[in-house]
């Protein structure tokens, strides 16, 4: 069964600081997704990573994928309060279409 693990689950950081969220998964896949969820809202897509070594950047967020290590990272640069949200990674199993989600990382950025 495909398992997706994120860490940390909770992250409190100061504005202006950098940090990385990690997403490990248990099976062969070269398709990984990052989503953002604001409190009381649904999920919106942030990044789609579709190959080994893929790197995507949007503003202060950068996501990368290492399919050999079965690891994706979401790096936050110079955090701002607006980035406070819960971030989920999700993996689409190579030989199936079960899109499985990690437990989410609840990020709080403090002034």
């Amino acid at each position, binding site marked *: 069964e495909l398992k997706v693990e994120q860490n940390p689950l909770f992250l409190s950081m100061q504005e202006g600081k950098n940090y990385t969220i990690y997403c490990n998964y248990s099976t062969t896949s070269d398709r990984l997704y990052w989503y953002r969820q604001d409190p009381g809202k649904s*999920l919106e897509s942030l990044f*789609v990573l579709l190959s080994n070594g893929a790197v995507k950047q949007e503003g202060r967020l950068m996501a990368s994928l290492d399919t050999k290590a079965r690891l994706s990272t979401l790096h936050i640069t110079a955090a701002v309060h607006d980035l406070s949200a819960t971030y989920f990674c*999700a993996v689409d199993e190579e030989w199936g*279409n*079960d*899109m499985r*989600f*990690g*437990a*989410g990382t609840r990020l709080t950025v403090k002034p």
Partner: protein
Amino acid sequence: GAGVSQSPSNKVTEKGKDVELRCDPISGHTALYWYRQRLGQGLEFLIYFQGNSAPDKSGLPSDRFSAERTGESVSTLTIQRTQQEDSAVYLCASSHTLGASLVGELFFGEGSRLTVL
């Protein structure tokens, strides 16, 4: 509309009653997922539909849960004899596929918040 539409947005019901939740995916999206999200928790996979293929029901937590999809359009998730532990937000998502493979991210509806008293 252009997005995934879910109804009702909120549903309060008494324990033991049946509820039906509806999802209208984005037109042309052949893949449709249902997830459950309990308060403060992650997403729990329930069921997946892909075109006219047999659905993947492996995530349904009990036989009180069932889902149907009419072709590549509307889906309904039915919970019979609701229990308090069924209280959660039920999220529907759709995606485009090429053959049997996803070609991109999921697009989520706003969810149906179910409260079982």
